[in-house]
């Protein structure tokens, strides 16, 4: 048994200088980069509403949240760098489409209620996915996840609190919330990835203790967690098949449109092109700034 296998078997952490199979390293790079990209692209759908927030308190909350996402991106890119990757290179891979980000951010945000629903459902789903990753086998990623999860859970409560406030407001506000729930529910369920039967990498990722639970287990956990929250809020989840199954001790629910997930992952979602174009523009418009900073640093080195 190699050292790597022993560490995994003992449920301990793999650190950057440790030996690891090339496939493990590649899987970690792909997963961490994809997560980092998701944080950065995820700033866009909510960031749009910062300058439009309907109260100064909500503006401050949203601005702080989007700032947290930039911070999460930063420490996830740093975790990827421990595997020999370079942030600039990863950014290139994002904007030329070689690396992916979460499909959820390819849906549009149409009203301020979307800010609350993203906090409640999208951050809620992210927490379900990420809390087990705090015990993921790759040390730098697991440690980054601890901080990310704490902040995400803060965001999730704030989103839910916004929705509670809106549901206690006018009929128009309640309608906005229901409309946003209708639009975000199924894409949120898709955040857990394809069904287990159609997820070829799950078994290996579980054997390597990168993943702790299958996609379907996490999806079920999310549904069970969310149903009572929806009831308290007073919204209807848009799934006629959703009901409590006493025998299983879980909720039964309908099947997400997996073809839609494939299309969105494949680049054909409502906002894919816009999200990447925005990221590319920011990167290109910042090129002269980064060049100037590098040139200045070289001058400083030349004249100590």
């Amino acid at each position, binding site marked *: 048994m190699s050292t790597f296998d022993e560490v995994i078997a003992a449920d301990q952490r793999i650190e950057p200088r440790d030996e690891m199979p090339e496939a493990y390293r590649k899987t970690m790079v792909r997963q961490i980069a994809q997560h980092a990209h998701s944080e950065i692209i995820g700033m866009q759908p909510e960031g749009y509403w*910062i*300058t439009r927030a309907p109260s100064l308190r909500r503006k401050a909350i949203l601005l702080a949240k989007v700032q947290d996402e930039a911070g999460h991106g930063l420490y996830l890119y740093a975790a990827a760098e421990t595997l020999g990757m370079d942030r600039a290179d990863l950014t290139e891979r994002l904007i030329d489409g070689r690396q992916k980000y979460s499909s959820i951010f390819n849906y549009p945000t149409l009203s301020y209620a979307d800010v609350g629903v993203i906090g409640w459902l999208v951050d809620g789903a992210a927490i379900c996915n990420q809390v087990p990753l705090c015990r993921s086998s790759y040390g730098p990623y697991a440690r980054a996840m601890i901080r990310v999860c704490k902040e995400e859970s*803060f965001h999730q409560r704030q989103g839910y609190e916004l929705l509670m406030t809106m549901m206690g407001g006018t009929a128009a506000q309640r309608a906005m919330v229901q409309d946003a729930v209708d639009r975000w529910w199924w894409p949120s369920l898709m955040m857990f990835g394809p069904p287990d039967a159609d997820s070829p990498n799950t078994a290996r990722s579980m054997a390597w203790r990168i993943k702790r639970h299958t996609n379907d287990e996490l999806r079920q956990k999310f549904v069970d967690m969310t149903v009572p929250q929806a009831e308290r809020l007073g919204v209807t989840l848009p799934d006629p098949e959703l009901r409590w199954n006493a025998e299983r001790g879980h909720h039964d629910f309908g099947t997400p449109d997996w073809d839609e997930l494939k299309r969105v992952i494949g680049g054909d979602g409502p906002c894919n092109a816009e999200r990447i174009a925005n990221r590319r523009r920011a990167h290109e418009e910042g090129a*002269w700034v980064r060049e100037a900073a590098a040139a*200045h640093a070289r001058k400083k080195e030349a004249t100590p």
Partner: protein
Amino acid sequence: MDLYDDDFTGDGHWAFGTGFRDPLDGVPMTPASPELAERCLALGDDALVMSHRIQEWCTRAPELEDEVALANIALDLLGQARLLLARTGRDEDALAFHREAAGFRNVRLAEVRNGDFAHLVVRLLVFSTWRLAVLERLRGDPDPVLAAIADKGVKEVAYHRDYAARWTIMLGDGTEHSRERMERALADLWPLVGELFTRDPDLRAGFDAVIGEVLARATLKVPAGTAPPGPRGDDLAELLAEMQGVARSLPEATW
């Protein structure tokens, strides 16, 4: 399966704890005189409008570190705006979302449309150098509330000035191209500097000294002459249309 096996109770749950000190904790709150309310309104509007222009940079910054720093600066200014608007004795949201452009008391430097990153850096350098001088003086204001707000603001704005000064030096003394952009931004924004000192003309000398030192280290020149600014455009009206749109479309709503 226990997803919440972390200890999610108590203060340790939050990344920065929950023990934020209220800057107005224990400060006696008396009704503001019309003169004090007017001063707080102007200082609050400066912060609110400037914060908005920095918020517009969100997802557009040249590096992630700047994304975080700019959001931080925008948040600080938004926080100052909220305390100052509250000190006028009126509702912060009524002031922010239900006033027309003509009722805003901010300086033009805060409201003009964004340009490139050099424009942002120069605007932030000028704005924060001036505002830091204003707030430092206000720490000794007879109104204890305004003095406490200024005391908190001084620490924040000192950081904003530092951030802008560092970028001024890097871009001024970076590449030929970055230097040209900085010169253009200085030329564009300099006509708006004069207005800053109509309230406190005696702060100008200290301002000139700081700007002179930063620009010298950036190998940039302080723009010569004091060309009068052009006519006021519709920049603020356009900004407010975006900022106030949602709030005004649902006037009975609670947020």
